[in-house]
């Protein structure tokens, strides 16, 4: 066994004894979402209390397990016992958990699931944690996790992202070792055969891009990781960078080897400070063990990775704009061809792939392209990580095989919308479109989503219910793309501004039907004439909502009515006296003291009814959101008043 293998073996041993110690191991999810939910206080409390109670515990920070709704997430692993996963952990629950760690029994409350065995995806191993028979709830069988297949997020929430040993214990850097034994062309063939497509949104075949870059003459080439994740509402990449940075590094080193590049750059947005720290840490660790730097694992291959921070420009997610920014210029795209694979950074052949794309490389190399093609659909292989946000019971990140239906993701896994009727799902962020609830049996794959007028995009999925106005959604996304337009080309710069003018008119009830026709003509022109992807896809939310929700646009224009009750001044809120139960919640949450009670007969709660004073109402909709009986109704301004007077 040569020294590189010895290094990996040693790391693996270290990592395994860290992952499965002889004492109780407690992990706290301290990625950005966990911290925002208060995980830091939980972590500090555990450490202080463990100390005070003289408990010998291993306390580890991990990334996110994905169920962000349940943050702070804490797992407890007692030797020989199933791993317990607790959600919404606070100080009180922490105390109870520590009681368990001290010899008592572990609490039942907020136990969201138990793990009986760990899958090591890269090797296909199963590590059984206990001999006990399964008793619910088993984490993998909960509705949130059941449809999932964790390939990209396989380590997130399990390992300490700062520990290269724990990464190695789950098969880490074995793929790199294996790749270095093969020829670069063989690696490219394998990636091509796997059918892996760019996960940043474009869906371009990854193997083809690598091949195109490799084929270019010259010995200076670059690989870049696009970690600029600018779609508002998408944070899949952040989660991977914070929870398992090594998988991205390993993917890039393998890619660099295959393409013939000696330099890699991770372009990560500065709005992700924790991800930057984790990456720098991981790069340091990888260098330390010889997975980065000179003569990697004795192969003679040199590779280094540098982190460059994006300073706040969504357009820099576009390849040529990103390259310009790295070169110290403003992030303006330029016409393609030439493509970055021919002439990119400094005019050299450059291969840019998204975080998720790179993270898929080690699994494909370890398990083979055949394994990967066995997952997903005909045209879209593998899995996709989605960030489920919005009006959804279970907010968080899910990773599912391509081909899983929207219903399985949004309703089954994420729990649907709750009290209000599901209306649509927005995929692809500002470059994408809305899929109405009636189409939720659509399988999630590149072609199906494009055919429906949206795109896969980077994976953001915003769930909307009946309280969302689709005109407002289009306006929201368009104001985003207008703000983020670099301004170079007339189509995008002026086109998005003009489209927004019209949308503002519609949302304010000042538009005429001709405006709708003009909006559509502009949308198509901006789509076809823009210089780069930002402008080309900026009209998508407009075109998509016009396709499926035209009636809402027409209601705004013809009737001056916003049926969802969002566009201020275009609706009234009234309380249906039949449905009203007199609970008074609306009055309590009202921001303008506009809800009052009538018929308040002492001792007869049910005779009480509530009433909205239209003069005072500021249309904040707190009452609508709070009413558990759906008694608050949205009606047109000139509509009949349903509540009694």
């Amino acid at each position, binding site marked *: 066994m040569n020294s590189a293998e010895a290094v990996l073996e040693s790391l693996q041993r270290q990592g395994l004894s860290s992952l499965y110690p002889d004492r109780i191991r407690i992990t706290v999810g301290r990625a950005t*979402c966990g911290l925002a939910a208060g995980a830091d206080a939980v972590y500090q409390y555990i450490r202080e209390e463990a100390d005070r109670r003289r408990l010998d515990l291993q306390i580890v920070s991990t990334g996110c397990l994905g169920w962000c709704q349940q943050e702070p997430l804490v797992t407890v692993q007692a030797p020989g016992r199933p791993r317990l996963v607790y959600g919404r952990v606070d100080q009180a629950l922490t105390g109870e958990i520590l009681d368990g760690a001290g010899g008592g029994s572990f609490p039942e409350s907020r136990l969201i699931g138990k793990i009986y065995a760990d899958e090591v995806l890269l090797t296909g191993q199963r590590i059984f944690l206990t001999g006990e028979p399964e008793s619910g709830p088993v984490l993998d069988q909960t509705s949130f996790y059941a449809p999932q297949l964790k390939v990209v997020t396989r380590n997130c929430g399990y390992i300490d992202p700062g520990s290269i040993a724990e990464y190695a214990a789950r098969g880490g850097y074995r793929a790199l070792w294996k790749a270095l034994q093969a020829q670069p062309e063989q690696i490219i063939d394998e990636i091509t055969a796997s059918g892996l497509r760019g996960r940043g949104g474009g869906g371009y075949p990854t193997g083809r891009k690598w091949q195109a870059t490799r084929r270019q003459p010259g010995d200076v080439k670059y690989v870049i990781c696009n970690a600029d994740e600018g779609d508002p509402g998408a944070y899949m990449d*952040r989660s991977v960078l914070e929870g398992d940075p090594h998988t991205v590094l390993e993917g890039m080193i393998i890619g660099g080897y295959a393409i013939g590049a000696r330099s890699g750059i991770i372009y990560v947005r500065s709005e992700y400070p924790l991800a930057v720290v984790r990456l720098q840490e991981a790069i340091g660790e990888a260098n330390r063990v010889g997975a980065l730097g000179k003569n990697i694992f004795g192969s003679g291959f040199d590779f280094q990775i540098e982190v460059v921070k994006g300073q*706040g420009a969504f357009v820099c997610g576009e390849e040529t704009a990103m390259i310009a920014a*790295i070169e110290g210029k403003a992030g303006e795209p330029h016409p393609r061809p030439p493509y970055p694979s021919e002439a990119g950074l400094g005019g050299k052949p450059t291969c840019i792939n998204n975080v998720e794309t790179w993270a898929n490389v080690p699994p494909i190399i370890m398990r083979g392209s055949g394994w990967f093609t066995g997952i997903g659909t005909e045209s879209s292989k593998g899995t996709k990580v989605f960030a489920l946000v919005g009006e959804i019971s279970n907010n968080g990140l899910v990773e599912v095989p391509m081909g899983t239906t929207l219903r399985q993701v949004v309703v089954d896994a994420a729990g649907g919308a709750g009290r209000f009727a599901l209306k649509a799902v927005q995929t692809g962020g500002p470059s994408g479109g809305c899929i109405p609830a009636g189409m939720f049996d659509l399988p999630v794959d590149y072609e199906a989503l494009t055919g429906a007028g949206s795109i896969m995009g980077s994976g953001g999925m915003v769930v909307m219910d009946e309280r969302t106005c689709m005109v407002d959604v289009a306006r929201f996304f368009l104001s985003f793309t207008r703000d983020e337009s670099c301004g170079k080309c007339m189509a995008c710069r002026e086109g998005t501004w003009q489209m927004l003018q019209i949308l503002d008119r519609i949302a304010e009830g000042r538009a005429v039907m001709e405006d709708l026709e003009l909006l559509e003509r502009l949308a198509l022109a901006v789509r076809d004439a823009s210089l780069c992807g930002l402008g080309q896809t900026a009209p998508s939310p407009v075109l998509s909502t016009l396709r499926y929700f035209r009636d809402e646009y027409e209601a705004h224009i013809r009737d001056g009515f916003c049926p969802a009750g969002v566009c201020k001044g275009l609706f009234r809120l009234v309380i249906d006296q039949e449905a009203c139960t007199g609970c008074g919640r609306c009055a309590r949450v009202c921001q303008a003291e506009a809800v009052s009670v009538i018929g308040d007969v002492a001792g007869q709660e049910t005779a009480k009814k509530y009433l909205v004073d239209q003069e005072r109402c500021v249309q904040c909709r707190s009452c609508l959101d709070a009413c558990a009986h759906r008694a608050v109704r949205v009606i047109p301004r000139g509509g009949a008043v349903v509540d009694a007077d």
Partner: protein
Amino acid sequence: MYVDDAEIRDVIAGHQERNGRVTAILEDLQQRCRYLPEQALRIVAGELGLPLTQLYGVATFFAAFSLEPQGQHLVSVCHGTACHVKGAGRVSESLERELQVAIGKTTGDGQFTLKSVRCLGCCSLAPVVSIDGRAYGRMKPDTVEAVLSDWRGGDRR
């Protein structure tokens, strides 16, 4: 925050990145000075041999850079999709009222700069407000005052 020429040159010399050196230097200066002073940009252009117009273009292109002094604390209201759907607009209005300042501006006493950002990546906790990097989730118009009180009157408690 005043930084003298010598310190600016030190900052420049301290950045030897092969890639992304320009924006790394600007980010560093932005953090130290709380904005990018004209003098600093002139020195950077000179030291790096870049046309000042190009550097000025970069400094005005990216949202992270400011040519005007920022306040002691940066209050960022997330206007990402999830936050928008969950009422970020109302939280935003409440912040403007509380701080008596419009989005994009700094309070008269130099304490707070209020900015709109998209997105902070904590979408499950929408709507989110971040102050100097510390994120507050599940914000409501009426919780704004309590959150700000943590930061008012000098340093964070």
